[in-house]
């Protein structure tokens, strides 16, 4: 977790619409108060129940993005006494054609929610509309940036995890393992977020390919195919199951997932059972390896719980202020459930030898000796992303314009 004073400084700067200073690697974790909240000795103070609600774009049990958010909310309920959690999931035009985000939010507020979390970039406009209509309710738009751009009402905060690190680790694990030297990325839709995550994966993969495998970057194939949405919508998106099988048939032997659901690992597992050797790196949810233990190299995941707990307490205490937050891992232990927003669980398919190398890689990221967003870095069309000798700042990374040179796939629609 990032140092609080740095975060507030960052906030102040963004609100003045100044360019963010590069935070690079974060200092050691801020000591979040140990969750020794004795619920048994509940004094009269938190007598009033605090209800918070969540609008999720997909189902709460998708084994990915949405499940991670749901579990984050469950964490809050567990750790904070007197808190009630309600939610509406599957709020998307395919599952609920006549339900708009504003409507779902309205229902949650009708049930007494005082704080609303919306969990998709797609929900930005709806969240802002609802927030403007309910100035007395607090909103967290996860993964959004409307606070940064100044388009959000004052009761809205943005929260996102620095998954770039998780993806670098994922890319490294893939590059350490691939036999064919061919990595495939199952991409959702194309936007700055998904581009920067693909780029991070590629940077991690390229580094470990060159450093630990001793091979030149030109021998590493890295391809991304975008399905068009965060998950499969039959007849509208590409079918991720089919895309994953295309990867396998084209000889890619590690499938890295960037979508909310688990088709990548499921298909890799099937192919492996059928005699091929295909590995997978799922995404988003700590438990995602369960969909195919034998092929899982590990999973970069979000741990929303601690930040949601902090923000729920902030809202309850009435100390809410607008903020755009981008929380990194707790580098002293990226898998600490109480402090680290971003984690990486190694999977059973990662060999012990490669696991050791991966740990070394993580240690370099942690102590700041390695920053993969160091120039020179080039976009696909040859333009400069980060000039030689410079390090990309947060805003440059957040608003990544294109995929990096070396990646095969569409940068823009």
């Amino acid at each position, binding site marked *: 977790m990032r140092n609080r004073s740095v975060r507030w400084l960052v906030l102040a700067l963004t609100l003045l619409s100044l360019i963010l200073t590069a935070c690079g690697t974060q200092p050691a974790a801020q000591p979040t108060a140990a969750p020794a909240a004795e619920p048994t000795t509940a004094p009269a103070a938190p007598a009033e129940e605090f209800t918070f609600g969540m609008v999720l774009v997909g189902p709460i049990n998708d084994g990915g993005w949405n499940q991670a958010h749901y579990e984050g909310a469950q964490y809050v309920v567990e750790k904070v006494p007197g808190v009630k959690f309600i939610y509406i999931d599957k709020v998307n*035009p395919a599952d609920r*054609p*006549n339900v708009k985000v504003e*409507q779902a939010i309205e229902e*949650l507020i009708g049930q007494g929610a005082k704080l609303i979390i919306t969990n998709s970039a*797609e929900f930005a406009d709806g969240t802002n509309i609802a927030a403007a209509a309910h100035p007395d309710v607090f909103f967290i738009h996860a993964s959004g940036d409307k606070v940064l751009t100044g388009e959000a009402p004052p009761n809205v905060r943005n929260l996102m995890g620095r998954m770039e690190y998780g993806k670098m680790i994922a890319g490294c694990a893939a590059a350490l393992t691939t036999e064919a030297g061919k990595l495939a990325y199952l991409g959702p839709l*194309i936007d700055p977020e998904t581009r920067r995550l693909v780029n991070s994966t590629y940077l991690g993969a390229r580094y470990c390919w060159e450093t630990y495998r001793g091979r030149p970057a030109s021998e590493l194939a890295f391809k991304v195919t*975008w399905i068009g949405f965060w998950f499969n919508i039959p007849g509208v998106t590409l079918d991720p199951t089919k895309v994953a099988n295309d990867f396998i048939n084209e000889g890619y032997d590690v499938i890295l997932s960037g979508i909310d659901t688990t088709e990548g690992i499921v298909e890799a597992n099937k192919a492996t059972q059928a005699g091929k050797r295909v590995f997978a790196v799922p995404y988003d949810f700590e438990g995602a390896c369960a969909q195919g233990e034998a092929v899982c190299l590990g999973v970069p995941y979000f741990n929303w719980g601690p930040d949601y707990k902090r923000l729920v307490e902030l809202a309850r205490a009435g100390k809410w202020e607008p903020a755009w937050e981008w929380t990194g891992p707790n580098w002293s232990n990226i898998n600490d459930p109480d402090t680290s927003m971003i984690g990486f669980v190694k999977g059973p398919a990662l060999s012990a030898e490669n696991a050791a190398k991966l740990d070394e890689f993580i240690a370099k990221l942690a102590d700041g000796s390695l920053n993969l967003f160091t120039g020179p870095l080039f976009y696909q069309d040859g333009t400069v992303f980060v000039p030689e000798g410079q390090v990309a700042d947060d805003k440059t990374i957040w608003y990544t314009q294109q995929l990096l040179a070396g990646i095969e796939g569409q940068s823009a*629609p």
Partner: protein
Amino acid sequence: MAVTYSLPRMDGMRTDRLKLAASLTRPMLALVAAFALTTLALLSTGVSPLEAYRLVLFGAFSTPVRLSDMIMLAAPLLLCAVGLSITFAGGLYNLGVEGQMIAGAIAAMVPLRLWPDWPPLLLWLLAGLSGAAGGALWALLIGALRQYANVSEIFAGLGMNFLASGLALYMVLGPWRRQTSASLSGTDLLPRDLWLPTIDRLRLAPAAPLIALLALAVVWWALTKTRWGLEVRAVGLNPAAAGRLGVAAARRMAETLAACGALAGIAGMLQVVAVHHALIPNISSGIGLLGLLVALLARADPRWLLPIAVAFASFTVGSIQLPLTLGIDSAIAGVLQGALVLFALVARARVR
């Protein structure tokens, strides 16, 4: 639907009353059967059917916001159902209504994106005309396929629906995509002053239901009070016979399709300027097909269109609360709507 049976009297009214009784018994039976089936589905999920019905039937009326959400859904629904009652009168099954709605929405976007600086009133008018023209054109293609290629309007309509969805997807991901991203969530929101005037707190754009009611009145009048309506109904009953009586049957059929398409197109326009304020891939949201159910249930009788459209819209809006309060899927509204139509059709078929 309170029905009182009266003893048959030995006068001229007798047969009429029997007819009325008979015509109401069948819907009543269908209603009972539909609720029985839905109750069965609810019981299988283990929730209290009474509680679920309370939400589905009356949930939409519990708060002003829900009520206005219902109205904003009922408006395009009524437009589609009204349009479909024209094609039904002409004996056509216009399953392409969904695509006509999408085509209308896309067409309505054109002036809004080309000249966003023009006065809003003019733009809304243009969007409405353009939407109606887009929907009508889409429907006329079906008519042409039917007339000249001998393709059933049902299959032509379904095909055109796919084509329209594809076109909407293409526009959202292609020419009209957001800056820097391609997302299926839709185009950028329209500038605020191009939204149809909306009561913010309620999300209610009063013009939408007014347009729908106006359409209902005009179509009712045209179908029942004009020679054109008479001819359309004659064509619907028997095109060959109507043709022998000097009615231009093919022309009338094309006109009904165009009229239905235009109304569906206006519904699509409302989805853009009054509901979503953007073009989204699923801009029709199944409202066209729901309108088909409304028209089927109303037997294209204009008197029933409004109440049934309002009822169906309430089911849909009311059911949004189901997952939240009872933990069951809101699809139960669809079960109820589908069962109602199914049993209504069965009841009618049995009498024939």
